């Protein structure tokens, strides 16, 4: 039995609706002063007569705030939105897990937390091995820098070491097919060359766990095929892949298992065909 490389435990992500981060110091002081005197916060977006609302759940949410700060807010608590509510799942080494769901189901939030772009509000994710997350390719590309310079910059941003990139440099350039232009600033690249170079870097990270967003499905048919091929190769080498997509065809061809997210919860999981079926069987417009 391959060992578990990702374990998500009781994962919650809370967002606040309305103007909690008022944006300016003046309003913050106003709100604070109003609370101190027990008045209504003049900057609160919601009607103070409302009860505390969690806009989309039937579970009572966990108390997430410092109780000391919470006390004065009882009359007019802000709306809270749970993008993820109590996710639990495990992924084993070599598995290719498809994460599907409608817009707003929490897929992107889950990816962001997995990529450590943001933190969970509660719960943990335990990971084993080097993680590379591709929410976008070409992150950090600077238009004024040459292709060569950008390969190094982008590679290190994605967590590679300089000498590692040195070793793989020729492969990357060959993969992208931009040998001739490697010392030209990337702002002069055609968009196809740009994307190919960006993807070539991403394809050479060699992570143990690869987290991929569907936005990677850009470019022409050939390029898409190359992307899918690369991810399949990754999976073949014992890598674990998490793939988020709306495109059921690519999910079906890539993934062995799937989870279906709905309103921040796992609605279904298991064999990918089964999960896709249950996703398609319930077509609610969003």
């Amino acid at each position, binding site marked *: 039995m391959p060992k578990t490389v990702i374990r998500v435990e009781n994962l919650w992500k809370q967002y606040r609706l309305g103007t909690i981060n008022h944006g300016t110091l003046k309003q913050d002081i106003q709100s604070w002063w109003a609370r101190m005197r027990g008045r209504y916060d003049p900057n609160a977006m919601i009607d103070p007569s409302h009860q505390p609302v969690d806009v989309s759940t039937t579970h009572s949410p*966990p108390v997430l705030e410092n109780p000391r700060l919470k006390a004065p807010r009882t009359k007019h608590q802000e709306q809270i939105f749970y993008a993820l509510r109590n996710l639990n799942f495990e992924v084993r080494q070599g598995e290719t897990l498809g994460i599907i769901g409608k817009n707003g189901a929490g897929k992107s939030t889950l990816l962001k937390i997995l*990529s450590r772009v943001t933190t969970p509000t*509660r719960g943990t994710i*335990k990971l*084993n091995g080097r993680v590379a997350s591709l929410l976008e390719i070409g992150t950090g590309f600077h238009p004024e820098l040459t292709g060569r310079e950008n390969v190094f910059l982008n590679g290190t941003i994605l967590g590679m070491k300089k000498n590692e990139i040195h070793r793989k440099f020729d492969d990357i350039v060959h993969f992208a097919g931009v040998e001739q232009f490697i010392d030209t600033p990337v702002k002069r690249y055609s968009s196809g060359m740009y994307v190919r170079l960006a993807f070539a870097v991403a394809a050479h990270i060699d992570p143990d766990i690869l987290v991929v967003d569907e936005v990677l499905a850009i470019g022409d048919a050939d390029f898409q095929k190359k992307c899918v091929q690369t991810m399949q190769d990754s999976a073949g080498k014992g890598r674990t892949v998490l793939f988020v997509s709306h495109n059921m065809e690519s999910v079906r061809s890539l993934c062995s298992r799937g989870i279906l997210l709905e309103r921040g919860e796992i609605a279904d999981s298991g064999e990918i065909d089964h999960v896709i079926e249950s996703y398609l069987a319930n077509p609610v417009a969003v």
Partner: protein
Amino acid sequence: MLAPDPCADQQMEPPALNRQTPVSTSADESWTLIIRPVSGWFDINLAELWSYRDLVTLFVRRDFVATYKQTILGPLWYLIQPLLTTLVFTVIFGKIAGIPTDGQPPILFYMSGIIAWRYFSDCLVKTSGIFASHAHIFGKVYFPRLTVPISVVISNLLSFAIQIALFSGFLIYFILAGATVHPTPALLLFPLLVIQMAALGLGCGIIASSLTTRYRDLTYLIGFGIQLWMYATPIVYPASQVPKDWQWLILLNPMAPVIESFRHAFLGTATVNPAGMAISVMTTIIILLAGIVMFSRVEKSVMDII
């Protein structure tokens, strides 16, 4: 700590995925990474930061190369800026306003102040905007965010070094021409002064960057605040010209003793008040530590706010 886990009693059954395999809880499981909610007031992983040192050097390179791409004069701009500013200051403050320069040649006096101040203010201003200028990267990839302000300080150090070379050229010329300037042994402490300027600029900058994520107003404040701060620092006038009653203000400004020491080391005339220097060093350390703590709090959640 927070109250005991309120959702413990309503924890849902793990979903069907892998339900057939009992969740192993053996203690020998080792995880290379555990992602958890923000906790604690100091959460900077120095070992991780060190492992990303290649990224710092590449950011430095990017900043240095990209600044003057497609310019004809290129890095020469690093020299033109202080030269022209020195010229303007010499004319306005030296000739027209007639502010004394402690008996030093006005060009050396102003240039030393301008170069040192510029290093500090560039560090501060550029680090203060990093969340805004790097939002597109921070929103997509994780890496220790502190690498960015550190790289800003280092890339500014490069331009500072070029400018110091220019200044040294002028200094040697004036000495050969018989001016009354004489570098003192304090020059050996010059690297420490640079470190202090970098630390102070970095500290103020990351405090500002942490606050600007919430309070955008600070962006505007920094723009002209740094100008006002310059006039509160003995750049265009020597500290000795400050009236006795106002000398305490100089003590409060951590940059003032730095500039004075800088001039003392290179030109030999300015006065250094040891007490003032000690206060300045203490302030710098406090500001830097406060900055790192605030930054470490903000960096985790910034993408939800910005």
